[in-house]
């Protein structure tokens, strides 16, 4: 399994408790090996296997947690 790191950004994080929510939703997704949500900047780092989980799927998982996010180049 080859993992890549994808950076997503969300402008919607408003209470630090949502960090745990998004992180565990991502971590429970198959193909995601690590997820870190930075509350202060709204940056979401995901290490995942692009074969199993696409970038679009990541966006969808975050949307299911209730937040809008998009993929960023750095």
């Amino acid at each position, binding site marked *: 399994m080859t993992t890549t790191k994808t950076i997503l950004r969300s402008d919607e994080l408003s209470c630090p408790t949502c960090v745990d929510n998004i992180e565990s939703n991502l971590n*429970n997704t198959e193909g995601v090996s690590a997820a870190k949500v930075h509350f202060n900047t*709204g940056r979401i780092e995901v290490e995942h296997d692009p074969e199993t989980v696409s970038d679009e799927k990541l966006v969808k998982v975050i949307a299911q947690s*209730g937040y809008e996010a998009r993929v960023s180049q750095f």
Partner: protein
Amino acid sequence: MLLRNATTRKKELLIVSGLLITTGWVVDFFWTSAWSFNALMLLATLTAGFEIARRAWQGLRNRHTNIELLVTIAATGGLAIGVYWEAAAVTFLFLLGGWLEARTMSKTRDTLRELINMAPDTAIIVEDGDRTEIPARQVKEGMQVLVKPGSKIPVDGIVESGATSIDESAITGEPIPAEKQTGSEVYAGTINKNGRIYVRATKSGADTTLAKIIRRVEEAQEEKAPTQRFIERFASWYTPGIVGLSIASYLFTWNLELALTLLVIGCPGALVISTPISVITGIGNAAKKGILIKGGEYLENAGKVTAIALDKTGTLTAGKPSVTEIIHFSKATALAGVDPEEEFQKVHTVSLSDQNTKSLPSEGEELLYWAAVAESVSEHPLAEAILTEEQSSRIPEPDQFESHTGQGIEAVLGDDHIFVGKTEFLKQKGISISEGINKEIQNLTKKGRTVVLVAHNNKLLGAIGIADQMRPDALKMISRLRENGIERIAMLTGDAQPTAEAIAEKAGITEVHAGILPEDKNDIILEMQQQGHQVAMIGDGINDAPALASADIGIAMGAAGTDVAIETADIALMSDELMNIPEALRLSSKTMSNIRQNVVIALVTVAALLTGVFTGSIHMAGGMLVHELSVMAVILNGMRLRWI
């Protein structure tokens, strides 16, 4: 899913629930129908509560209890005991607060977004005369990139042809455009104002200086300040504590409404957000001015600085030596029948600051020419100053060249034999140095110049005064620092005493430590700290690394283009703008007091809410309102830092 987009869904639910609540009050006012009032409030609670309960459920599925769960329990309990209006107000206010917070928080993240958007997505590359547009990230090192006037530069690189002026404010914060020509370095994200240039790419995508700045700023914003860590520890037991209190008070008083009201104020929202909001905004605002602060902790330290140690070379001065005077002998009048020996003793000093090279007498030109020939193969920093001054393009390289480190150099070109170096060196070589010129040399040395003598075919031609000149803003900066309450300002330099003192006097610095080694710089900083000072060390980021590290705050100047400085300095100033030093300290202390205000707002709110709840003057709706207001107050107060 009802509505796919989370934000839109939240907004629509808010509008619907808000309308239901208003209708309920209108109906109650005109018809006083308790039944329809309660029915409308129930609907409003369910509408807004749907979103909250969904999040609570999501949290539970991931084995997390969250604030949404507490609010859901409170609202459900409220419905159960029949306080419909309270339940509706709690859910509506919670959703509204969350929506407003998200909107304002995204505003505070704007500064960074502006920086990210500075980098264009595509680049025009030129290969064998063909132009193709490719994603900027995919530009490889060595590719030639065309940048048209008015467009942004997509990569870091070196100008290969063309000349232009470039707005580098994204990197340096400097509003005045910089002139660029062949050989100049350019950065991704800067704006090409008026000329067409071809750039040889050196870095692209995540490796560019801009990307590094963005990463740096983000890491800084994410790093928790000590205050934030303390608050988060407090917050982590606050919520369970409130829940426990709620259960305990129910068991003691059997007052369900009191217990539910406690749950409503169980979110430490204003507390947890108080520090991060100020840190994000303060660091973001500083970044926009070309000041990179490494994180909240450094912000706190920088706000408390009472003493400053400054490096001289490259900080107070430009770091590039230039020729300031030329001492030469006059021989023109010697031809007019006066005793040549005597006239030869006549010494002239030409100051280059008020006279340019063009009007330099031929004797001076000759001296500069021979010095340049000898220095043309030398790598000594002073050589560069001499070669810059001697603008003739045909400087032949010497046939033989020997460098005596710290003394001088000798060079042979055909029949010409040249010595350039210190007085002692030329004496050793058997050159006689007259009293007249010796006096002039000593004068210049006292003024802080480095003086090199030039001899051609065993005859002294004269001398060249070289100095690293002070930056124009140095005096203004030092006095601003003193105004801002810095008690002790010391200059540390490896340079000789006279040179150091000349600069210190001009800059208004009284404490000078000259001729010291890098370890000594360290000792001086430790001594300042032992006296109880909070010390900031300011240097160019490379030579001063140990001193920068042992100071409470290490500030590196001119960091654009030097990765080491961006990575290691506590505060990196992207440009050479000296006034950014007091500005960085000012922003830090402003941010610090903003944090303190926010913590006070948050703590006072918590205390007031608890008192209000137990004295019975605050119920569910009021509790939620005060709570949300305090969160907004903290966010808006933090946002003030954008404009200071």
